[in-house]
C-alpha cells in the first residue's frame, strides 16, 4: 500500500513538471501555431543562470525568481530574433527554423561555457524528506505539485478574467479578427513568449533540483517530454497540455512500477509506443472534441 502511495506522489510531482513544460509549449503554439523547439533551452538558461547567481553569492530566495526572469527574457529574445522574421511562413519552415534555433543555443553554450556539466548548488531543503504513514515523501515533490497547482490557478484566472488573457485566447483563435477589436495583437505575442518563459523557468527549477547538474544539452529531455505531453493533450489546447503532462508521467510511473526489472531500460520505448498509439486513435490528441468545437465556429 505504501508503495502505491509512493508512486502516486512520484506521479504527481513528475506530472506537474511535465504539465508546466507542456503548457509552455502549448501557449506559444496556440497563439502562433509554431512549436518552439528551443523551449528546452529555456530550462538550460535558467540552470546556468542559477549557477551564475550562486557564484555571485546571491541568496537562494532571490536566485529562484531571478532564474525564472532569465528564462522569460530568453524567451522574449527568441521571439524577437528568430520567430518574428519567420512570421507567416509555412509550418515546415518554422519547424526547421525552430529546430535550428535550438541547436544554435545549445552550441553557443557548448562554445562559451563548455561541455562539462556544471553543478547547481541547490539549498539543502531540496533534499529533505518527511514521513507520513510509512511513506517517505520529498519536500521537493510536495512543493512541485503545490506550486504547479497555484500557478495553474493563477493562469486560469488570468486567461478568464483579465482582458489581456482573454485577448490571448482570442488571438490564438483568430489573429486577424482580434486586431479588428482594436487590440494590438502583435504585442500579445512577446507576452505569450514571456509566459512560456515563466512556465519553463518554474518547471526548470523543479526539474533541475533532482539531478543538480546543467550542461548544454540539458534542455533536450524537458523539450521532449513537454512536447510529447502537449501533443498527446492536443496541440494548442492548454487544458490538454496539463492533462497530457499528467498522462505521460502516469505512463512512465506505471511502467517503472510494473514492468519487470530487465525491461527497465526500455521504458522510453514503451512510452513512445503508446504515444504513437494515442495519436493513431486520436490524431488531434486527447482533447479532440474541444478542438473540433473551436473549428466549427
Amino acid at each position: 500500500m505504501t508503495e502505491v502511495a509512493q508512486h502516486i506522489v512520484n506521479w504527481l510531482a513528475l506530472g506537474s513538471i511535465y504539465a508546466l513544460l507542456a503548457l509552455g509549449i502549448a501557449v506559444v503554439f496556440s497563439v502562433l501555431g509554431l512549436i518552439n523547439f528551443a523551449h528546452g533551452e529555456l530550462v538550460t538558461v535558467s540552470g546556468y543562470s542559477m549557477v551564475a547567481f550562486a557564484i555571485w553569492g546571491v541568496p537562494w530566495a532571490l536566485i529562484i525568481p531571478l532564474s525564472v526572469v532569465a528564462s522569460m527574457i530568453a524567451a522574449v529574445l527568441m521571439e524577437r530574433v528568430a520567430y518574428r522574421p519567420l512570421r507567416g511562413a509555412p509550418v515546415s519552415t518554422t519547424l526547421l527554423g525552430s529546430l535550428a534555433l535550438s541547436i544554435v543555443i545549445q552550441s553557443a553554450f557548448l562554445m562559451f561555457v563548455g561541455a562539462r556539466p556544471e553543478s547547481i548548488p541547490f539549498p539543502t531543503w531540496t533534499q529533505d524528506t518527511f514521513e507520513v504513514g510509512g511513506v517517505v515523501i520529498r519536500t521537493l515533490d510536495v512543493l512541485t505539485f503545490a506550486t504547479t497547482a497555484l500557478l495553474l490557478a493563477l493562469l486560469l484566472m488570468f486567461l478568464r478574467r483579465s482582458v489581456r488573457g482573454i485577448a490571448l485566447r482570442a488571438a490564438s483563435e483568430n489573429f486577424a479578427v482580434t486586431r479588428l477589436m482594436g487590440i494590438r495583437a502583435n504585442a500579445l505575442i512577446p507576452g505569450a513568449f514571456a509566459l512560456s518563459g515563466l512556465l519553463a523557468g518554474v518547471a526548470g527549477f523543479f526539474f533541475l533540483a533532482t539531478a543538480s547538474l546543467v550542461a548544454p544539452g540539458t534542455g533536450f529531455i524537458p523539450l521532449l517530454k513537454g512536447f510529447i505531453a502537449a501533443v498527446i493533450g492536443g496541440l494548442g489546447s492548454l487544458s490538454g497540455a496539463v492533462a497530457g503532462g499528467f498522462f505521460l508521467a502516469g505512463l512512465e510511473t506505471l511502467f517503472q512500477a510494473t514492468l519487470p526489472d530487465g525491461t527497465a531500460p526500455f521504458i522510453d520505448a514503451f512510452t513512445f509506443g503508446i504515444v504513437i498509439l494515442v495519436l493513431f486513435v486520436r490524431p488531434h490528441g486527447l482533447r479532440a472534441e474541444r478542438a473540433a468545437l473551436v473549428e466549427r465556429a
Partner: protein
Amino acid sequence: MSAMAGGVRGIWSYTQDRWYLRALLGAALLSLILALVIVWFETYGTRTDQRVALTFLINLVAVIGFQVFMSNSGVPTFGHVAFVAIGAYTAALVTTPTDRKSSETLIPDAPGFILNTEVGFGPALVIALAVVALIAALSGSAIVRLRGGSAAIATLALLIIVRTVLGNWEQLTRGPKTWSGIPGYTTVWLALGVAVAAIFVARLFRESGGGLRLRATRTDELASSAVGVDISRSRFGAWVLSAMIAGAAGVLWAGYFLSLAPQDFFFDLTFVYIVMVIIGGTSVSGAVIGAGLVTLLTEAIRRAETQGIHIGPIDADQVFGLTPIVLGLIVLLTMILRPEGLLGRWELEEWPARTLRGLRGRRWRRSTARPVAGPANKPHGGGDT
C-alpha cells in the same frame, strides 16, 4: 540550322512528355555530374579529400531517403535516421565474422542463426533492406494515417523507440556499447553506385503517378483527396521506399566506419540530414546540392578550426561547437530568406527552361474587362435622385 534546333526541341519535348524519360534523363544528368566530381576527387584529391568524398556519398544516400519522403509528402520526418541505424546494425550483424561475433567482445549470447551468418555486401544489402522494409511497413501503417503535426511527432517517436531498443538490446547489439570489427566492404565506387541507384529511384518516384499524387497532397490535402488521392496510401509507398534508401545508406555506413554505436544515429545526425535536405530545395537535385554544400561547409569549418581561430573566449572545445552553430544559423537564415531552398521545387535540368521563359519576357494577357467611363455610368431617364 533551325531545322536542327527544331529537331532538338522536338526530341526534348518528346522526352519531357514522358515521365519515365524525364526521370531517367534527369537522373542520368545528376549522376554524371556526381560521378565526375567523385572521379576528380579520386584522381587529384588528397586522402582526406577522398575520405570526405566517401562520407559525402554515404550521407547523400541517406539524404535522398529523407528527400523521397519529406519533399514529396511535405511531412517533415525525424525518424529516417532510425532506418539508417537499422540498416547499419543489420549489415553489421550479418557481415561481421562469426568468430568475432561469438567472442566476448561482441555478442556471444546471440541466437545461433545470427552468429553463424557471415555474408558479403550484396546479400547483406538485401537482408538489411528487407528488415528495414518490414519495420517501415509496420511503423508506416500507423504514421501515414496521421495528419498535420502529429505525423512529424510520430516519426520523432519512432526515432526514439529505435534508439532505445538498439541501445538496450544487449544480446543483439551490445546495447550502448560500441560494436566494432565490421569488415570494410564499402569502397568509393560501391558508394557511388548505390548513390546513383538512389538518385534514379528517387527521380523515377518523383515523376511517377504515385509521386505526383503524393506531391498533390503536399500542396493541398483537402483538394487532393477530393480528386480521389488516397493520402495514406500515397504516403505509405513513399515511407517504405524512402526507408529502404536510408537503410541502404546504413549498410554503406557500417562497411565504412567499421564500428557502430546507437548514439551515432540520433538527433545530431538527424539535424545534419535535415539541413542538407532543405538547403538545396525539395527536388532530388536539391538534395544532392544541399548535401554537397553542407559537406563542403563542414569541411571548411573543420579546416579553419585546425588552423586555429582564436577569438576571445573560444577554446579548444570549439571543434564540436562551431559546426552546429554555423549549420543552425544557416538553416535559420535559409528559412527566413529563402525557405524553399536553393533550387526550390525544381530539378537541375528544369532551371534552364525556367530562366529562358523569364528572359524571353512575360506577356501579360490584357484583361477583357470593358472600359469604364469614369467611376460609374449614371442611369438615364427621369426620376429624382
